[in-house]
């Protein structure tokens, strides 16, 4: 109890108004729960309103939408259902008093509040890795942005961050930013990729050819120089163990450096209440209702693991809402036992980690390295799924039926040659 801070009461508080949070809030409301959705931005949608390219919603809405269009559809549903939400509402802290007593403390333009809830759905998304995390040294200059910062500047505020651009990272985000800069008339001088293969989907790698953008594979940016603003960046070649090759360095002149070196689930508020984290996903360890190790705290979207498809993010939001409903009704998520899911050969990360065997479940996973003509196998239950291509750029999703796995103690997932 926090005397003097106005107190609100809900069944569920959803933290984060991106696709995961909106889908969760919509589903929770449909299930008859009294729900509050909070987001610190001035608008709903999370990162979607700034992702103005097409490529969203093929599964979820069976139609190819841009990010803002996808967000608008979910927001419309939210409003139609009368879901209570607040923007410009920043969650400062979560407290877990007991299974059905949790508090979310947030600030908003009208002051601070304590929202009590029986369950929490945490959908706060991810943060971007910044220059220092990938070991870039040099001058502290203007003109160094993460891809998301540059995207917000260009596609929300209409401000061009620079004219001569070097992009670090060839994942989808880096490639999409390369296209945005090129379309707006900037010169993209290079996309620099540490790995020997591009990190993005084929349809996005095509962008490089569209705009004659050089791609340096097995290279990294190590240094940035300039007076006041970026003037040049130093690039060096790496060997197969990703070690720098002496004497291979060269400089590229540019006024802007864009870092697109991956996302990390944003989990600080969860670790503060003791939620167990899986080091390989960077997100919480969860069961098949997406419940974390703290009962009644659920997680969905990029806060759970980094997704490349918004469709899966929304699906996770709905699942978390169903978990919250069950939790509130039964005073907990029960299972006679939990089946452990473990990473086998060529699996870099996966979730969920514990299955009840009482319901069908989707496993989300990423492979460690690109491979053609492979099979996803779970030897314990004799499951085999053929895949013509598996790359780290594309999250795999497999459905397991309750009856397939019910009698197992443990499942090992591997992606191996046929």
């Amino acid at each position: 109890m926090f005397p003097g801070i106005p107190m609100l009461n809900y069944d569920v508080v959803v933290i984060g108004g991106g696709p995961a949070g909106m889908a969760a809030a919509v589903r929770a409301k449909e299930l008859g729960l009294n729900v509050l959705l909070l987001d610190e931005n001035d608008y709903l949608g999370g990162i979607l309103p700034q992702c103005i390219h097409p490529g969203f919603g093929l599964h979820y809405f069976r139609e190819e939408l841009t990010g803002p269009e996808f967000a608008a559809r979910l927001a419309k549903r939210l409003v139609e259902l009368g879901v209570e939400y607040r923007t410009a509402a920043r969650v400062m802290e979560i407290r877990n008093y007991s299974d059905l007593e949790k508090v979310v403390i947030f600030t908003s333009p009208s002051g601070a509040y304590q929202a009590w809830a029986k369950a929490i759905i945490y959908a706060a998304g991810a943060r971007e890795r910044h220059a220092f995390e990938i070991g870039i040294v040099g001058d502290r200059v203007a003109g160094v942005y993460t891809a998301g910062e540059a995207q917000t500047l260009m596609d929300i505020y209409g401000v061009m961050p620079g004219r001569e651009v070097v992009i670090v990272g060839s994942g989808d985000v880096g490639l999409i930013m390369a296209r945005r800069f090129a379309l707006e008339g900037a010169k993209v001088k290079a996309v620099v990729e540490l790995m020997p293969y591009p990190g993005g989907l084929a349809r996005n790698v095509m962008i490089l050819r569209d705009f004659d953008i050089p791609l340096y594979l097995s290279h990294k940016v190590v240094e940035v120089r300039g007076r006041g603003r970026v003037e040049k960046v130093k690039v060096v070649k790496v060997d197969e163990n990703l070690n720098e090759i002496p004497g291979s360095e060269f400089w590229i002149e540019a006024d802007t450096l864009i870092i697109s070196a991956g996302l990390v689930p944003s989990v600080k508020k969860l670790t503060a209440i003791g939620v167990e984290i899986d080091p390989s996903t960077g997100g919480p360890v969860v069961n098949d209702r997406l419940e974390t190790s703290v009962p009644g705290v659920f997680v969905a979207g990029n806060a759970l693991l980094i997704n490349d498809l918004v469709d899966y993010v929304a699906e996770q939001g709905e699942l978390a809402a169903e978990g919250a409903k069950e939790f509130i009704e039964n005073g907990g998520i029960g299972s006679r036992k939990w089946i452990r899911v473990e990473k086998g050969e060529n699996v870099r990360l996966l979730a969920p980690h514990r299955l009840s065997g009482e319901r069908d479940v989707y496993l989300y996973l990423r492979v460690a390295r690109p491979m053609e003509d492979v099979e996803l196998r779970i030897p314990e239950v004799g499951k085999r799924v053929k895949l013509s291509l598996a790359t780290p750029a594309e999250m795999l999703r497999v459905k397991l039926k309750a009856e397939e796995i019910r009698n197992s103690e443990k499942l090992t997932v591997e992606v191996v040659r046929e």
Partner: protein
Amino acid sequence: MTKTYRFTCIVCPLGCSIEVRIEDGKVVGVTGHTCPRGKEWAVEEATNPKRVIMSVVPVEGGALPTVSVKTADPVPKELIPELMKFLMELKLEAPVEIGEVVAEWNGIKIVATRGA
């Protein structure tokens, strides 16, 4: 003159490597595809590549300073720089509805993908 184009197909996640050979402006061979859709895509990509184009346009009086827009249909690649010039001159005023056609250029509709 013979030209060979190599593409990674983007029609589905299979990602076939397709080769299209063009002689004097005519398609003389397509290899590497596994389905007719892939073949069709690769031929169009070699002969008349098109893209859906997106950008943002400044807007007066909206909640955000811009609205995002896209072309209603794919645009031939060589026209893209000209289209971008057109979009850079464009200015809108709120209210703008999502899905509204906010301009037209050479018969190509420009559709708002965010409201304002």
